[in-house]
């Protein structure tokens, strides 16, 4: 399935809903969209992986890139993911210790302690 990207706003947070397959071919589009959002002024970004059915190392690299960029800009970055196959990928790569991971968008927004919490 092709990559799908949709953006919505929840309070101070920009939520990017990602669907389909995030791999070496589609990850550059995800990177571009995240850069557009950050360059456009978004400082508190939540990426919802709820409709992602494949995620590889290239996609993970893009997410880490966004995390670093937002941290250095004083912002926040969190992921929404409740699918066990994807959670296993985060555990195996130890990225579960790098990203704030939440089961729902509400939980991600509520847990944000950077001053943008709802």
């Amino acid at each position, binding site marked *: 399935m092709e990559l799908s990207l949709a953006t919505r706003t929840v309070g101070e947070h920009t939520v990017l809903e990602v669907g389909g*397959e995030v*791999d*070496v*071919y589609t990850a550059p589009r995800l990177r571009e969209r995240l850069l557009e959002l950050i360059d456009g002024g978004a400082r508190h970004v939540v990426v919802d992986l709820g409709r992602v059915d*494949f995620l*590889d*190392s*290239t996609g*993970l*690299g893009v997410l*880490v*890139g966004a*995390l*670093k960029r937002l*941290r*250095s800009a004083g912002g926040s970055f969190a992921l929404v993911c409740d699918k066990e*196959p994807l959670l296993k*990928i985060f555990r*195996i*790569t*130890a*990225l579960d*210790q*790098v990203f704030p991971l939440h089961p729902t968008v509400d939980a991600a927004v509520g847990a944000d302690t950077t001053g943008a919490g709802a």
Partner: protein
Amino acid sequence: MATVRLSFSPAPVHVRTARLVGVAVARRAGVREDLLDEVRLAIGEACTRAVALHRQYGLHDPVLVEMSDAGQYAVRVVDRAPIEAGIGLAALPPDELADESLTDEALTTGVGFALLAGFVEDLQVRPVDEGVGTEVRMVWPVGR
């Protein structure tokens, strides 16, 4: 015994095709359904790595994927990049993953290797027998 070979130009768009073929052959070979997600991810990572190496070295040679089901499901992914580029794989510790100085390429390579090592119990990365290049060999059990 059945063998399926696929060779593709080293472009990212073809990695998905390799994943789809690899999972289809795995299913046909009798790999358990609950392992197929891992097969899909591992073949994708091995092919992504090969494509990245070919692009890094400006190689137009195709990447080879060979699948066989002789008693087990074995997949070989063969690249043609200089060997010193391919063997030095290492997983990254968590405290380095978000390090500002780590390049995107190094991060993706490290994470890719962590996924391969984490999802494939029987994994070998070794020089090809003839010529230049590296072979990533992955094996999964078949049968229920």
